[in-house]
């Protein structure tokens, strides 16, 4: 797997809605910029060999890195695949929508739910939002949130950005009634 660079973004929110938080709200993202394994090959019918060759390595690279960056246990998480202009969204989806990728994060974070995801094709510098949900119960409304990311020079047309995001808490100043109150 050819990795061009690794980007880490950590947001720490101290106040929201004009009020200080009891403790800082942290969200971390780690993104790897890789060469699209199917670049230049035309329409590849069977993506399985490429997925098998790279998805697990990407999960093993990103999962510990994003938890290190968060410096706290993860309570919510999400993932992203942003494909350069010459690739198919199917290429990015192939690398992240497999247990071979996500199980690294689930195991490292003691998580059980599916990872919410963004898949998108765009030019270098494209802005993308990674959705996050609770790591053991995707219905926990307080933890539905997103983090916005931009890498200044990626993905190139023949590249894919693969990212994981982790939050140490729900939304800052979360105060919505839980789903159960409406059932």
């Amino acid at each position, binding site marked *: 797997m*050819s*990795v*061009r*660079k*690794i*980007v*880490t*973004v*950590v*947001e*720490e*929110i*101290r*106040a*929201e809605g004009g009020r*200080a*938080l*009891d*403790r*800082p709200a*942290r969200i971390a993202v780690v993104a790897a910029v890789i060469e699209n394994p199917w670049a230049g090959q035309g329409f590849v019918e069977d993506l399985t060999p490429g997925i098998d060759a790279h998805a697990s390595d990407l999960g093993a690279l990103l999962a510990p890195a994003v938890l290190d960056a968060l*410096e*706290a246990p993860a309570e919510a998480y999400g993932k992203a695949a942003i494909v350069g202009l010459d690739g198919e969204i199917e290429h990015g989806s192939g690398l992240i929508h497999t247990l071979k990728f996500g199980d690294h994060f689930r195991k490292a974070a003691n998580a059980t739910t599916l990872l919410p995801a963004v898949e998108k094709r765009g030019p270098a*510098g494209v*802005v993308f939002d990674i959705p996050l949900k609770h790591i053991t119960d995707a219905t926990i409304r307080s933890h539905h949130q997103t983090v*916005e990311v*931009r*890498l*200044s020079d990626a993905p190139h047309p023949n590249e894919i950005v693969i990212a994981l995001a982790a939050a*140490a808490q729900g939304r800052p100043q979360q105060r919505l009634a839980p789903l159960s109150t409406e059932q």
Partner: protein
Amino acid sequence: MQERMDHFDESIGLRKLVLYRDVVLTEAGAAPAQPARRASVAAVIRNPWAGTGPTADLSREQKRIAPVLASLLTGRLVAALGGVDEIESFGKAAIVGTAGEIEHAGALIHTPYFGNLVREFLQGESIICFADTRAEAGETLVVPLWHKTHASTRSHYQTISARVSDAPRADEIVVVAAASTGPRPHPRIGDRMTDPVVTTETLEVVAS
């Protein structure tokens, strides 16, 4: 682990901090001889001069706020890059929201209350290069970096982008400190010591 809210948050109107760090593993298909980690740390604060006019005295607030930002931002940079000894180049920047003046951004980064302290915390000697602008939230600012003790070291001329998705609001200022642990991925454009003398007379062909 998450610390308790620091006491200075309220006093400087701190809303959020954003760290951006990258490491280039391959560039143009080859690994750099000296892989550099680069990072920027951005603090979003309330513009203490929002609503004041062009004759307002900026000195009292800059003296109070800028040292806190210098300490906060350099502390995060040093932690993100593995120690102050690792840092070889540095830069600074500010983005003022649309209800403020560019002078407000300058007041927080262009005086000794920020610059001298950033230089001291990062153990540098050079003047610190900078970028500043007034913009809407989400603007990307390219922050220049150069060597912290030998500013003319050409291998270390580089930039890093800083961006906060929802800042600055009109009445906020984003203040940035940035640093790198090494040069560009494959520096090979010489240096002042190796340059020939270049003037219009030494060149055979100069566009007129």
